């Protein structure tokens, strides 16, 4: 009986969470579209989410591109297909590694920071104070973060893609001994516009997910330091899992 009770309780809790996230999405999207628009808040978030994430995303994609070049060379050398290394690097980075790695890194940096900031505002009554000052907290806190997340991540991924491909190029030329112009021509030969666009579409979805999970868990944070800590952990874990699920879903949708 105890097992069924706890299963039922978990099921109800899951349904409650899904419903509450769905409502949160509806309300936050609504407040993104209705004036007043808090321009200064949006700019602040664009800088926080975009500009300050650039070093993390740049380093991650640089080393991923480099290691991908080494590993694919090792694999392809076994059936004499070394000349496909450049193509594999550029396709893997633009279609898959760039968006996913940047998404996961930004989820750790920005998702945690959003949840901690909004959670602290919740436990110190700052969100109630906003309400008493005739400002809608959803519009002031959530809207700008969702907009910034959705805009910034594709830009970060685009820059990360260039850095990642450059990392592969460096390894290809200086470690594996490829000819520079051949490597570059192979890089561009099979790359299609749709590959880049698919990566950027994924990035926009991931950016929205990261900001949404940060805002949701922060907004409904429990009391005290423990509540904020849990909110931060939940924001990062749920954003990371949802990014992986969304990644497969979008890839499957545009497969072929």
């Amino acid at each position, binding site marked *: 009986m105890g097992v069924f009770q706890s299963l039922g309780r978990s099921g109800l809790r899951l349904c409650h969470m899904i419903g509450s996230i769905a409502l949160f999405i509806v309300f936050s999207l609504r407040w993104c579209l209705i004036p*007043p628009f808090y321009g200064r808040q949006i700019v602040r978030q664009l800088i926080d989410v975009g500009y300050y994430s650039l070093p993390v995303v740049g380093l991650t994609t640089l080393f991923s591109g480099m290691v991908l070049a080494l590993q694919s060379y090792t694999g392809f050398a076994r059936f004499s297909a070394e000349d496909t290394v450049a193509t594999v690097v550029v396709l893997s980075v633009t279609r898959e590694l760039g968006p996913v790695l940047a998404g996961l890194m930004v989820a750790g940096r920005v998702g945690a920071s959003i949840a901690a*900031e909004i959670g*602290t*505002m919740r436990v*110190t*009554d*700052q969100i*109630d*104070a*906003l*309400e*008493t*000052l*005739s*400002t809608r907290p959803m519009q002031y806190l959530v809207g700008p973060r969702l907009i910034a997340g959705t805009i910034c991540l594709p830009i970060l991924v685009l820059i990360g893609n260039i850095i990642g491909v450059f990392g592969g190029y460096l390894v290809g030329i200086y470690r594996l001994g490829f000819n520079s112009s051949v490597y570059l021509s192979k890089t561009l030969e099979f790359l299609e516009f749709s590959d880049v666009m698919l990566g950027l579409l994924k990035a926009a979805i991931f950016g929205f997910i990261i900001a949404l999970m940060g805002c949701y868990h922060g907004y409904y944070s429990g009391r005290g330091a423990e509540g904020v800590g849990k909110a931060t952990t939940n924001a990062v874990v749920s954003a990371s899992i949802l990014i992986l699920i969304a990644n497969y879903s979008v890839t499957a949708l545009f497969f072929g």
Partner: protein
Amino acid sequence: MTDEKKRNVKIKISNLFKNFGGDYVLNGFSLSLKKSESLCLIGTSGSGKSVALKCLIGLLSPDSGSITVDDQETIGQSRPQHEAMLKRFGMTFQFGALFDSLPVWENVTFRLRQKEKLNKKEAKEIAGDILSQLGLAHQVLELFPAELSGGMQKRVAIARAIADKPEILLFDEPTSGLDPITSGVINDLILNSVNRLGATTLTISHDMASVRQIADTVAMLHNGRIIWCGPIKDINHTGISEVDQFVNGKPYGPLTTNKRETLQTKQTEISV
């Protein structure tokens, strides 16, 4: 109630009920405030004072009851009506609730800037004027809340609450955590600000020295309802043992009977 008396009532709270998980924090709470009256709501910790205040300003929805401001029902208002009503209120929170990410001048003029689109220079001038009335120098304008002392934070919170000259002011424990001298200063500031604005004021406080300094009327909340309400001069002669115990700070009495019994039971269990 005569027409004259009815006209004089600013806020009327009637028969308010609010429960959390089946525990009724407000259990038939009723209170009225006259125009320009300063009322202090006292009661033991956890007696529901802050919940009553949050219900009044609409941060919490009561289970049932009625709240009117100038004879206008506020429970069940539409969002625009509620927002219009909020513009008539100014509130300070127990721990200040200043916005960490904004400097002092932006905290003080937060509502004014939303309403009037002031430029930075005008907003700083207004914030500086209000803060100087509260005894704070212009140097604090650019500081962030984390860089201020507890007393300064309380003053900035009061400045934010009065910046838009509200008709109704709510103070949630404005002197908690402050030394007696700073508490006295804060009380003076509240009194001066309220007199200057002519605002109706509801203050929550545990501090009887503050209550005596700022209140015209005192109401005591116990078990979710008001057990006594009257002028401050009568507080020592209510004939109600709960009020007497609270006012004189006696450790034993009707307010602590249950707590003492629980403590004794626990001690017995431990010794067994």
